[in-house]
């Protein structure tokens, strides 16, 4: 049988008849006590050894005790000085005796309190007497101290030991002592012969190439021990969420849109049939640009059709708005407040050419709102935007599509609350049941684009669309309470590092 070196040594040092202390075995086998202990436990696990434990008490000198045993107790010094000063015959001034004793500082108090206790003499009114019959030379505490120092605790007086412990001159310690004894299997193994296998810590290229690995045993590690922290690269949690959404949408047949972040109000608002005096079009709600101030070119036919939709409406019974409309305002540049500007560009045929139904498009991109920064609102956030273009879409198709989408994220029992948007009719706010808390939460806004949106764009089938903030989805899924911790330059790296990955 081949066994690691340490196990072989321990096995050979063990006895079948009597317990042997592991420390003794280690010393004999020239092993570190820890290595011998580990080997003993390993052998015990294999049934070759029995390991027993007992707890031993033993006294150890403290630093102070150690000094006294090499010199003398302070009260002994005091007694000697008192005898020398003649205090056995008549009281002597204490200051004189202390000066002669060479005691200083705390040792004086120690000497005085123990002097009286041990009846070496009396201390009264600043004078000291010495008891001529006292015998400091055979002071039991000193004898006990010497016994501890010599490892003869059994010789020490028990009361004196207690007193020493109280004086802080000795410590009582407990020690676990492990002993081993060979089991029958261990004896058998030894009789059959045990060889030391070479053990290695690290598997090296040499071991592999030379083939030596076949003859070695590997040191066992404590595989349960904690390893050191390692820093690692990690995709941002919002990017992970975005990718999860993109994967879902691509799987549902949607293609991704791409387009400008800084764009003309025409594409952002006017195509969406937002009247130019709509309260949300003031610069308090969206970021208007100082530079560049306006777009270079807008398709003139489209501009005219959009103007007409605003002013005169679409269709024989369309009324349009009673709001002013000028191309100057439409040309003004903004940071987009929604990615629906991309949908308008795509639907108009000006981004990727004319589209024929059916089509499905999406984007998960940044939008900008001049909002107050708070734990749930940022000036920049990601909008999930999607739309389906087909003949004769109904609100039931809209409901079916969004039910499918949200179920991918565990949000079920979707409810459609009729709502108003200038650009869709019918419009719905979407509410769903939160997967963890069971609360009913708002999860998006949706609708079927109005004729006043689609007709100017040259679309003559139905388009249904919806939007949702990615951050909202993330907060729903992860329970983040303050979105500023993850998005933006105030982000906390620790939080990003600790956040679990999106699955």
């Amino acid at each position: 049988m081949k066994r690691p070196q340490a196990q072989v040594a321990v096995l050979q040092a063990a006895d079948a008849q009597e317990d042997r202390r592991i420390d003794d075995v280690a010393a004999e086998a020239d092993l570190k006590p820890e290595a011998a202990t580990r080997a003993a436990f390993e052998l015990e696990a294999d049934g070759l050894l029995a390991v027993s434990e007992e707890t031993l008490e033993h006294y150890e000198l403290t630093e102070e005790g150690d000094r006294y045993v090499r010199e003398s107790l302070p009260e002994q010094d005091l007694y000697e000085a008192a005898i020398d000063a003649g205090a056995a015959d008549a009281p002597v001034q204490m200051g004189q005796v202390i000066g002669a004793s060479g005691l200083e500082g705390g040792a004086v108090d120690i000497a005085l309190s123990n002097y009286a206790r041990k009846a070496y003499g009396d201390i009264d009114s600043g004078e000291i007497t010495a008891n001529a019959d006292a015998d400091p030379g055979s002071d039991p505490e000193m004898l006990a101290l010497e016994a501890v120092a010599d490892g003869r605790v059994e010789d020490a007086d028990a009361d004196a030991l207690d007193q020493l412990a109280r004086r802080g001159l000795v410590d009582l310690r407990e020690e676990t002592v492990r002993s081993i004894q060979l089991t029958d299997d261990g004896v058998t193994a030894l009789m059959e012969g045990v060889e030391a296998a070479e053990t290695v810590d690290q598997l090296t290229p040499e071991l592999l190439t030379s083939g030596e690995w076949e003859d070695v045993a590997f040191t066992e590690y404590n595989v349960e021990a904690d390893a050191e922290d390692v820093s690692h690269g990690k995709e941002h949690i919002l990017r992970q969420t975005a990718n999860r959404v993109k994967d879902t949408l691509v799987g549902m047949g949607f293609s991704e849109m791409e387009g400008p972040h800084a764009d003309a109000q025409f594409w952002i608002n006017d195509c969406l049939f937002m009247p130019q005096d709509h309260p949300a079009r003031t610069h308090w709600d969206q970021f208007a640009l100082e530079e560049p101030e306006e777009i270079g070119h807008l398709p003139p036919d489209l501009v005219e059709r959009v103007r007409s939709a605003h002013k005169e409406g679409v269709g024989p019974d369309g009324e349009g708005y009673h709001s002013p409309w000028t191309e100057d305002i439409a040309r003004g540049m903004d940071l987009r407040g929604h990615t629906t500007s991309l949908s308008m560009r795509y639907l108009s045929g000006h981004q990727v050419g004319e589209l024929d139904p059916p089509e499905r498009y999406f984007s998960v991109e940044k939008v900008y709102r001049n909002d107050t920064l708070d734990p749930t609102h940022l000036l920049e956030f990601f909008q999930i935007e999607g739309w389906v273009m087909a003949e004769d879409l109904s609100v039931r198709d809209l409901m079916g599509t969004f039910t499918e989408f949200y179920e991918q994220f565990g949000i079920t029992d979707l409810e459609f609350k009729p709502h108003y948007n200038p650009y869709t009719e019918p419009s719905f706010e979407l509410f769903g049941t939160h997967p963890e808390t069971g609360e009913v939460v708002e999860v998006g806004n949706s609708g079927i684009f109005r004729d006043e949106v689609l007709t100017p764009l040259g679309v003559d089938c139905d388009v249904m669309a919806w939007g949702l903030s990615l951050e909202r989805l993330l907060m729903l899924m992860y329970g983040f309470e303050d979105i500023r911790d993850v998005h933006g330059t105030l982000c906390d790296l620790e939080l990003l590092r600790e956040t679990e990955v999106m699955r």
Partner: protein
Amino acid sequence: MPVVDVDPDELRYLTGHDEKDDDELKSDLFDLGLEFEGWTEDDEFQLEFAPDRLDRLSVEGVARSLRYHYGDDRGVEVPNTNSADWTIEVEDQPDERPYVTGAIVRGLDMDEAALESLIQLQEKLHATMGRKRAKGAIGVHDLTMLKGDSATGETGKSITYTSADPDEATFVPLDADAEMTPSEVMASHETGQTYGDLVADFDRVPAIYDAIGLFSFPPVINGRRTEVSVDSRDLFIEMTGTDQWTIDHMCNIVCYALAARGGQVERVDVSYADDAPGEYAGKTLERPDFSVRTKTVTHDRIESILGVSLDSREVIDYAERAGLDATETESDAGVAYEVEVPPYRVDVIHPLDIIDDIGRALGFNSLEPTYPDVSTVGGRHERSRLEDAARDALVGLGFEDLLNFHMINEVENFERMGLPVPGTDEQAADAVGLADPITIQEPYSEDYTILRTWALPSIMMVLESNTHRSYPQDLAEIGLAAGLDDSENTGVAEHRTVAAALARTDASYEDAKARLQALADAFDKDLETPPTTHPSFIDGRAAEVVLDGESVGVIGEIHPKVLVEHDLELPVAAFEFRLDALE
């Protein structure tokens, strides 16, 4: 979204449903799209709703909607109106505010609640349709305090909407006890200070006179003489604005609310002088205009939008439950309906809006979802695929991926990076990051005034706010950067930029270059790094990033002055280049 305060007792009284408790009312209101937001201090419901049904901006309108919801009322209801006795003469009114409308409501017996509701309706209409009074402003007066000039005959009485010299005309405004001129009101009266801006540029300000004198200074404030109280039984309502349709419909909503309080509506003639500015010169309009608009909706369209089959009796029933009247007719597209829309409905501007009403009456949530049976092939945009591939490579190299704002300010983007403000230093002109920035108009946060021209400043800010976190901090971001560019249609050149920084006690140029090289190799790009100078980097330790022969970025050790500026106590090596170089 608009919020309206509604007393539940008033609601029970006006709907005639005393048996409804508060919770039932809340639930019924929710079905109508009015969400209970909480209680006011006066124990009223605070209701929030989407800004289409502006006829619900008072308890009277909410009660009307509930009565339709309960089935107590059906179809279009138009209050009776008496013929006109009063005229609003319109002459020399300001060009900037040419339109006026009006109505009289008599026989009211208002209590505090009714008066408060009227005031609230006025305020809410100002905030919404009235565009903060710019487009339309409402004045309500105690009719008995007005003395009409005899204008159109023996019995007729009139007031005049005209203009006045802001420094000469005088009246005692509400909440004041001395005569003031419009200029004084704008300068020192609280309401004048709030709304004075609307007419501050006018040579002559809007003014309404009766036989006694000036009694209203629209859209700013009314005179005290005609102030309405709970004792007022007959009201004169005038509205001025920049659009006749808008003020006429605001007037309709107010008249419907007062009629619901038992008031008798009496028409008013609005007589524009032959030379009056605006579209109606020489015309006399009779207001309020309670005429019913008609729209044609085809049966097919209703069925295709709602996705259900209906028979025409059902359609007509749902329309009536929505407060509309529908009659079946034939059109080119088959069966259709002539649908009448009551005069308070300002949101119905297309047949689709009627289909929405029918859907609401039917109950959208009763519809069974279906997955549309059309097949399309999905896919990612190539730019976003490239961005993802580059991000994966950076993460594989051990970088922590960041997501920063695209908006930043000049100080962070330029100054704290050691860059000169664009245009001030010719030598640095082509340094990475030194583009003319896109600037935001009247920003109200000093932190966000431009779009970033590069991303390293954002990363430096993250390093700065995380000095208490463990190192190494190897950070990277792929995101938007932009600069002015006349050759683009939008005037903006937007690009995705790849930025990375190694912040560690022994960070060096070589560490950064090793990673950049790995990235270049992963995308099969040939990397060269000829020396360059850049104010953000240490001279002699900065290089251009040249990929496949094109200069696309910069790499180097960040300059100590930039590090110290960001409170960093260890070196940072960094690079930034355009994502499209990896295409």
